[in-house]
């Protein structure tokens, strides 16, 4: 049946609007705000009339947070923290491994450390969209607010996340922007220059220091980077400076010094997920007073498992411990337990009081969720019932009534532990109705796109339609299995290689040699081995590491060939018959600028990737600020695009699409990791081969779909937040701008899919007649796949919302699927591609 084009446009628009609507409605229901108690806690909340709380052990605090300070960086054998280790050995420093729950990202982890609560996944999105004001802790109880409430003064230097989380709380601040990951030194010097003068001042009571350099080194070059140990020495020097000031200055006598990591990092230097490297952060409490605990630790220590040094505590335990040590009430929403190693600082009465207070605070949270609990506590004795809450209340009563302080303490800590279990394991209250509505809206969208196949009939043979649906449905079915989500790349590599075999058979049936498909297969085999990704094999040996990192000459040869290929392609599409020289001149400038930019970036960040003969050259060029260099590259590319569009009437239509594609390739190369640039070259070679195969629109759509996903994963991405690559997010950015950085981050992570969208358009253009219809067919096919895939992710998240892996596997997958649907599909595949079609068709 022939459907009117106007009706097809309408269906395309309606289907996609419904799809985006479904995504957003579902997201709102799936990532809910957790309810929390308002206001600041008072001592009276936890103590009956007249009773005094346990006395403060410290009056002041220095809280030094080193971003991504993994446990082994401080406690391990090859640590640069030699002074800190000597303090641990002498008994004045108490070390722990603090367990950071996923998502292991700075902002939620600061929330955990200061409020004692366990932030949900929503904070992760807000962490990236930092301008959001709903993420502030102004209305949530935390130990900073408690210090302020007690009339004391706070100062803070470092990551400006703190300024956003705690507005109007600090007397003096100097915030640094956390997102310039390419800066290893300046960002920390900006903090350190305040330390010495502030240590001489006596007008503050709490000093927060947040160092970012170590995290930046991790992001750029990984935990085994050559920059890592020097940075640890630098941080150790700060510890020494602060600790010696506490020892020698009278006004700092009662100061507690805490060195803490907000999260760790994985083998690749990323974080966000739940691997043991990412969740194991270092935590050290230091003060000459702690000698009284008579603890005996060795340092460096032997870990019990990979990253567990000393005792493992929860990160949320920091908040109640700090407030108790400072004699302040425990923050209202705290889920943590007081760290009992510090109990001997008090007498027995106060020890009981401390554990009792912690229990009371947690029981209030239980009562907030289960209103019956108050009544059970009010009964004053055990009721012999066996319900979970009845037993919990019974523990409380036995503790209160027990005559033995040691038994009381045991029972109070049992009680607190059980409260914590209930509070942390209680499934989030999902808004299942909204989730269901979202799934229905998504189904309507998919149904609309199904009519494309069922009613109008997509042009093409039945076999390829069957293949399309087999691909869409098997992919959708896969979303329900956590390991297929984690190892999604395997599915696409498998599907892409099968697709190449089909292309090979097709080529042979057309009496061609089959060599094109064989080369495609060969390139695919190289591509899939380039970066090991996923969960299980992430970090396993691959072509990038160790092969290319150990052979930088080969790497640069490949990069050079890639750029040469880009040059010839651009030159060909720019040169006109009358003046062939114009093409060369215009093509060479952005290519040279891009190579030099990559060279300077390598000189500054990844020196191990520079072969010796290039080092002097790279060092010379890196004297020009990289920001300026990137801006030059972008300006040249923009200039050429403008020129192309303006002089469009001079160039034949067939030429403008490849010309735009070739300009795009240079942009994507600039936005890619150095080691990934050859992959863009392989992709372009593949596209040239595919171009000569006279594929139908349906075959082109299938190819594009498969290669978009294959290259996404081959570039090193996965469905884990930690795989998000930020190393090119700041190219050419001198002042932080959420929108620009967002676009650059997206482009550098989706470089493969974007390249193949553009490549797919070129293929369609070279093989086709009517522009409007071709675009519609392509858009309808890709929309059908996207709707099916998105719907499957929503269903999986809904069905598995109580599954163990919901926060570690399915939530990140949902975020990635959102990006694929709302940004890659709608903006790149539909809007931008539509614009290019429109230009090409004029």
């Amino acid at each position, binding site marked *: 049946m022939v459907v009117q084009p106007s009706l097809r446009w309408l269906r395309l628009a309606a289907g996609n609007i419904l799809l985006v609507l479904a995504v957003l409605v579902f997201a709102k229901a799936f990532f809910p705000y957790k309810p929390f108690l308002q206001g600041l806690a008072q001592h009276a909340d936890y103590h009956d009339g007249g009773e005094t709380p346990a006395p403060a052990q410290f009056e002041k605090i220095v809280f030094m947070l080193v971003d991504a300070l993994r446990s082994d960086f401080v406690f391990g054998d090859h640590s640069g923290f030699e002074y800190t280790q000597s303090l641990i050995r002498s008994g004045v420093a108490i070390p722990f491994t603090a367990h950071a729950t996923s998502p292991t990202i700075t902002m939620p982890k600061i929330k955990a450390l200061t409020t004692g609560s366990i932030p949900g996944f929503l904070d992760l999105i807000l962490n990236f969209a930092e301008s959001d004001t709903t993420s502030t802790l102004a209305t949530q109880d935390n130990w900073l607010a408690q210090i302020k409430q007690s009339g004391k003064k706070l100062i803070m230097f470092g990551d400006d996340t703190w300024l956003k989380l705690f507005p109007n709380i600090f007397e003096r601040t100097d915030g640094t922007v956390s997102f310039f990951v390419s800066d290893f030194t300046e960002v920390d010097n900006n903090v350190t220059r305040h330390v010495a003068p502030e240590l001489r001042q006596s007008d503050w009571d709490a000093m927060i220091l947040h160092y970012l350099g170590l995290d930046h080194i991790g992001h750029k070059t990984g935990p085994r980077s050559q920059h890592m140990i020097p940075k640890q020495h630098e941080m150790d020097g700060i510890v020494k400076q602060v600790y010696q000031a506490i020892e020698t200055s009278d006004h700092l006598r009662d100061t507690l010094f805490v060195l803490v990591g907000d999260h760790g990092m994985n083998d690749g230097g990323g974080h966000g997920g739940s691997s043991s490297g990412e969740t194991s952060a270092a935590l050290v409490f230091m003060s000459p007073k702690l000698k009284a605990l008579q603890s005996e630790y060795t340092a460096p220590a032997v870990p019990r498992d990979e990253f567990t040094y000393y005792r493992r505590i929860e990160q949320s335990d920091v908040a109640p411990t700090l407030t108790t040590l400072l004699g302040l009430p425990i923050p209202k929403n705290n889920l943590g337990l007081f760290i009992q190693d510090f109990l001997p600082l008090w007498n027995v009465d106060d020890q009981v009081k401390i554990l009792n207070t912690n229990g009371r605070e947690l029981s209030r949270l239980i009562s907030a969720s289960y209103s019956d609990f108050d009544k059970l506590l009010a009964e004053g004795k055990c009721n012999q019932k066996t319900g979970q809450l009845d037993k919990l209340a019974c523990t409380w009563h036995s503790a209160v009534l027990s005559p033995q302080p040691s038994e009381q303490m045991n029972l109070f800590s049992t009680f607190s532990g059980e409260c914590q279990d209930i509070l942390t394991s209680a499934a989030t209250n999902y808004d299942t109705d909204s989730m269901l509505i979202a799934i229905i809206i998504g189904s309507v969208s998919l149904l609309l796109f199904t009519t494309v196949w069922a009613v109008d009939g997509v042009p093409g043979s039945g076999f390829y339609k069957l293949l399309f649906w087999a691909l869409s449905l098997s992919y959708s079915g896969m979303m329900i299995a956590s390991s297929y989500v984690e190892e999604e790349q395997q599915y696409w590599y*498998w599907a892409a290689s099968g697709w190449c075999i089909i292309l090979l058979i097709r080529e042979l049936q057309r009496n061609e040699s089959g060599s094109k498909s064989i080369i495609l297969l060969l390139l695919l085999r190289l591509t899939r081995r380039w970066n090991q990704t996923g969960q*299980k094999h992430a970090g396993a040996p691959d072509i990038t590491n160790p092969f290319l990192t150990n052979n930088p000459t080969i790497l640069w040869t490949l990069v050079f060939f890639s750029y040469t290929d880009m040059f010839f392609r651009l030159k060909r599409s720019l040169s006109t018959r009358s003046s062939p020289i114009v093409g060369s001149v215009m093509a060479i400038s952005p290519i040279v600028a891009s190579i030099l930019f990559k060279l300077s970036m390598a000189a500054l960040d990844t020196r191990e990737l520079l072969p010796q003969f290039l080092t002097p050259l790279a060092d010379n060029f890196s004297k020009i600020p990289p920001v300026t260099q990137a801006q030059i590259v972008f300006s040249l590319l923009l200039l050429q695009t403008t020129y192309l569009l303006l002089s469009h009437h001079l160039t034949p239509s067939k030429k403008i699409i490849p010309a735009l594609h070739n300009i795009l390739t240079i942009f994507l190369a600039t936005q890619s990791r150095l080691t990934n640039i050859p992959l863009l070259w392989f992709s372009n070679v593949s596209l040239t081969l595919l171009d000569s195969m006279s594929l139908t629109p349906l075959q082109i759509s299938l190819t594009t779909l498969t290669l978009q996903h294959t290259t996404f994963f081959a570039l090193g991405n996965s469905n884990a937040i930690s795989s998000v690559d930020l190393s090119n997010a700041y190219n050419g950015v001198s002042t932080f701008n959420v929108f620009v950085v967002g676009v650059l981050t997206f482009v550098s992570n989706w470089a493969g899919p974007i390249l193949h969208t553009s490549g797919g358009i070129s293929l369609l253009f070279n093989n086709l007649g009517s522009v409007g219809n071709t675009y519609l067919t392509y858009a309808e096919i890709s929309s059908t796949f996207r709707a099916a895939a998105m719907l499957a992710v929503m269903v999986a998240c809904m069905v598995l919302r109580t599954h163990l892996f919901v926060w570690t596997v399915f939530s990140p997958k949902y975020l990635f699927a959102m990006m694929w649907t709302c940004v890659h599909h709608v903006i790149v595949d539909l809007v931008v591609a539509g614009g290019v079609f429109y230009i090409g068709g004029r």
Partner: protein
Amino acid sequence: MASMADRSGIAENIRHAHPIVLLGALYATFTSLVNDPPTLLLQLLPVTIGIQIIHASTCLGNSGGSKVATASGNKKKAKSASKAKSEDMGSNVLAAFFSLFLALLIGTPAAFIVIVLLGAPITADLSHTVLCAAHLSVLAGLPLVYSYYVQGLKWRDIVSLNLPMDEVYGGALGACLGAWLGAVPIPLDWDRDWQRWPVTIVVGIYAGYAVGRLGGLALIGKVARFN
């Protein structure tokens, strides 16, 4: 005549028993396959070769030896089991061994290259992959070589799916498809021993071969079009 009927009766039995025996051999040795894939694959290879040679020489029509020159180009009713003639038995066995020789010498390296291009490991587990290729080649390739000898055009048709479907061809395609589908359960996080490379692939090859033979019979004479 009676003995000929006997023979074709025997051939018919072998034809039916053949996939069952193959799957039975794999089933009987499955535990060892999971525990130590390369060793078992090496031990199983001669068994499979034996089964394949008996099957080919008794059940398959062939164009082996010098006969190819006269037979080539003509329509051959190659696959019918009733073709097994007593006077040809000696030459049939010879032709089957010749097919084996080609399957191992040319088929295995070719299969190896293809499965590596499709993603089989080479830096680790090289012997696993080589033996896997050998099994694929003996199961899928040997009967094809026996039936079609080494005629270039036929082999182009075989690779490009231009050959009309029959039992031999169906079995070979089934084995290849089975190998590809066999990769599906490997990424699952069940951490079972049978997920080890290349256990699932080998099972896929054997099962695919058996199913493909039935499929070949069902779709006899059909040609797939991929344009």
